[in-house]
């Protein structure tokens, strides 16, 4: 049986693009007195269980999933982390 890996994927709006959600959170933090907050950006965090032979295989499958569906190549960047489940 193939081992299961836990793949964590972080999808973020591309740095060059306006992130109104991040701005709104930033304003709210300032309103609460957290004046030390600089830039805020809001993205998505996905956790998948992937069955694969090796961690590298799990990573390459997860990258294919990001490229096809989980991230939009026009507006988002992603990073992933593979751990033994």
């Amino acid at each position, binding site marked *: 049986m193939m081992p299961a890996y836990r793949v964590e994927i972080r999808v973020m*709006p591309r740095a060059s693009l306006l992130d*109104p*959600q991040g701005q709104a959170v930033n304003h709210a933090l300032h309103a609460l007195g957290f004046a030390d907050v600089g830039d805020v950006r809001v993205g998505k965090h996905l956790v998948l269980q992937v069955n694969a032979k090796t961690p590298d295989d799990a990573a390459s499958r997860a990258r294919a999933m990001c490229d096809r569906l989980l991230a*939009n190549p*026009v507006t988002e960047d992603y990073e992933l982390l593979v751990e033994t489940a």
Partner: protein
Amino acid sequence: MRRVAVVRFPGSNCDADTLDAARDAGSDAYYVWHRDVDLNQADVVILPGGFSYGDYLRSGAIARFSPVMEAVTAHARAGGPVLGICNGFQILCEAGLLPGALMRNAGLRFLSRPVQVRVETLDTPFTSAYRRGETLVLPVAHGDGRYVADERTTAELEAEGRVVLRYVGDNPNGSTQGIAGVCSAGRNVVGIMPHPERRAAAAVGGTDGARVFFSLEAAHATQHTGDVRAVGGHHPGLC
């Protein structure tokens, strides 16, 4: 009379208005379910507005993998007219049939109100019955309407006259260069954020949207005389 397929996804909610607007313009319009793999000999395909798959992940991201999208893509690649309205525009971008993407409105609020848009090109199957530069009042109803594309793509769209509609007066969602609609390089695939089907009869507040549907019937007449489709799909302009 053109055969117009209105595709329904789970979460589409402008499908009935779109069907009515197409029929009122004289088309033989009918529904196609998103799980169908056949467009039933459609001349034109319309992806209506709504919230397909609850906008999960990103608007249009899951709908683009619906079984019907393979036939829609084949139809588009063969030069067949395809119109995406609102969520339909988002789906066409996600499917790679139109460049760019639609992101969260700059002001974060969901916008549901009339806006002014200018018709920037008549050289598409859905705008040929307008006058160039004409300003229309059409409603928008979207949370993710901010059109974004990289600089090169935007410059290309402008240079090739592929911006179809542009917001005038104010830019409600922060779209790049006020873009409210674009077309493909072949000009047969068009995506617009405003809802022409909601302004297609005087009884619902105006008729500025009706000519989107009359255009495709007029384009049909022209195609028959020239049989343009047979020579590659890109008809040389009706302006």
